[in-house]
């Protein structure tokens, strides 16, 4: 499994190389995967025909150089919209990150690095059952913002999320379920048993040590800090 670059504090704090052009993107995608996942999206030709980027992507695909497929890349982009992060190529678990997934609007790791995609697909979460309908709506709403979700800039991705999460949206519960996953990956480190700050980028960002089998010695200010109203801690 590839090793990911760690955040500052444990060594390297570096910039990551991000593929910049369509040729780079093409190297990371296979035609078969794009077609397969586009079908999974459930909106078929409608979305593909409306996507100016599609031909460009398909024309530059080099077979068998697949990494993260299109649907998964979109889920990563969704996760990055909920909890944005720095550009990166690998997750905490060593999984690859699609080069267009992370908008790069925050300087610290986000939900994608914290393996939100793995959690989306975890059978104990069950989001796979919602994925086709969710992605279909994501892409449909993205068209109104000018293109495929992956091709949108962060501001437009946010607008797509705001529309999906509007209380008036009949499918808002699906969007809320989708929102819960990146937060669980990032804040609860749900994909990492016994996560610690050494290995879990979410914990690194929030400053949580993670497992603490020896607890803490200096956990109290050790002085009275307020007048108390009761004798025993509860009212009569």
């Amino acid at each position, binding site marked *: 499994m590839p090793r990911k670059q760690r955040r500052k504090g444990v060594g390297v704090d570096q910039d990551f190389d991000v593929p910049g052009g369509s040729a780079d993107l093409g190297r990371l995608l296979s035609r078969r995967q794009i077609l397969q996942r586009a079908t999974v999206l459930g909106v078929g030709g409608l979305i593909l025909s409306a996507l100016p980027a599609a031909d460009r992507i398909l024309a530059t695909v080099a077979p068998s150089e697949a990494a993260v497929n299109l649907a998964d890349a979109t889920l990563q982009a969704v996760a990055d919209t909920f909890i944005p992060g720095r550009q990166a190529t690998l997750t905490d678990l060593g999984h690859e990150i699609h080069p267009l997934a992370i908008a790069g609007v925050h300087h610290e790791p986000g939900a994608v690095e914290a393996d939100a995609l793995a959690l989306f697909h975890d059978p104990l979460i069950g989001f796979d059952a919602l994925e086709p309908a969710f992605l279909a709506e994501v892409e449909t709403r993205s068209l109104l913002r000018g293109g495929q979700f992956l091709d949108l800039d962060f501001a437009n991705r946010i607008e797509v999320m705001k529309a999906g999460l509007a209380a008036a949206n009949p499918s808002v519960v699906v969007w809320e379920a989708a929102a819960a996953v990146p937060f669980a990956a990032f804040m*609860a480190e749900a994909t*990492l048993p016994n996560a610690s700050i050494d290995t879990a980028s979410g914990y690194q960002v929030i400053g949580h040590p993670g497992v603490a089998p020896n607890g803490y010695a200096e*956990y109290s*200010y050790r002085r009275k800090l307020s007048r108390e109203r*009761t004798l025993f801690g509860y009212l009569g």
Partner: protein
Amino acid sequence: MAERVDVCIVGSGFGGAISAYRLAELYQAAGVSPSIMVLERGRRHKHTDFRQSTDIEHLSKTYGLVQGQGAQVVIGDGVGGGSNLYLAASLRSPSETFERRDRRPGDGPERRMWPSQITRATLNPYYRRVELALRVQRPSWKQVAKSGGLWAATLAHAGHTCDRVPLAIDLNRCIQAKWCHTGCIYAAKNSVITNYLASAEQLGVQVRPSSQVELITRSTATPYRYVVNVSEIDNDSANPTRQPTGTTTQIECKVLILAAGAMGSTPLLMRSRTTMPSVSDQVGKHLGVNGDHMAAIEYDERKVRDLLGLPGFGQFYKGNHITTMSYDFWTSKPGNANDGKRFTLQEIYLSPLAHTLYDDARAPAGEPSFYGLQKKQALSTFNNHIEILAMVEDTHDGEFIAPPPFGSHVRPNAGPVGVGTFNYQLSDQSIAVREAADAAIRSIAERRGLGKFMKLSMRHVFCAHPLGGCRMADSKDYGVVDHRNEVFDNAGLFCIDSSAIPTSLGVNPSLTISAVSERAVAQLIDRAADYGLPAKPAGFTPGVPGVALGPHTTPVRRLDDAAVDAKVRSYS
């Protein structure tokens, strides 16, 4: 052929464990081997099974997160129920709670919402009983967590009082790691698996995990009264489905105690009403959330030093989850005229994940508040947050639509998240008192720029304290069980758990649920012979369950925190 026992108890949390232990004491005093069975749908936990981890596999074994229409409810799963996961704040509910007359519009005429026999005074002996069993102790100020101390100092800065919270924790054994919420790995937290339930088993009570009760019917074999249909649940296979395996059994009993909690006993009794129409039509109604209302504060650490005189904060991750709270917004509103307006404000640490629930407090025009860039910035300051749990006097605003075909909620997979068949829509009163609590927290937190108030941002009610659904009342017209927790018109059938609690409590509910349970089982023991159980011997006195840790690891606390604090700072 049904298996026969005298007493069948459905559920192994506070109510079930207390019932099991006290009845086992009765059998012991009578010189009879206990004929008591506890059925638990979850798996058996030893405290050494728990982990300081919120990974999805561990959560799936211990938690349920039930998503209803309008509310998310957290429940415990497994032997020990919610006691494995609670944060151990153990508080007597204020007197005013039991005298309340406010209610949701349409919920009958004005009346006392609790049965007339139950007051704070009548519960006090039972509160004491539970405090002894759960070894409740109040932390000294030297044991108050920094987060709790910061809340106390913040309240003092705003001219308010703040009290230390009694805890069901062995503070000598506790390592102050703030990992109660996934089960204490050292059993320093007094869950029922190390006291009531462990002692009940030592006295001969059978505890049968992975046994989900699906239906109650009447027995025709006097003196047996009830038969329960039980599904075996696949909890322990290599890839557990947590669904029924298809193997079913029946248990026939003289006394049936439902102790599966508001989210478990209620749908079971609703489903069983088809065969027992004499159960009140109030079953499934008046589901409550204990007035739970969350918020958070993001502190300016410089102001913490300058205004409060503390040496900074940045260590939300240390100490007990709950150590301080203020009663100022309760005691300032005495009398029934203020029913529905009181609340308490408690510093609490739920888990980092709970911070999903809060607005980022930055309020940029047009930007989302619970996700996106602003939210990410707010998450990055996590260690300078504290969370506040307001426990408000709301109305019980939920109602089960119908029970699911089996179990208490629909489980689409083996994970912790399921779908509950209930609606929850806050009443105007429930909204108003929450807004009052928000205003109070904001005023206290933002005084002189000390911190930013972070408002609950989700559309749903989030609740770790479900109550009601089989609430107690003076009359079958308004409730399901009487003051003894016995189902109206169904002798020998009891709801001894959170489902019987008719109002929010103003404090964390475990001690009151336990005290009401102690009272109910004491009343049952007084009349035990009437139910075909051993008669209460003269001079019978309930004791204190021993502590049984079982195989355990001796905790060793680090001597100083310099290394871990430095590591945390290096990432900040």
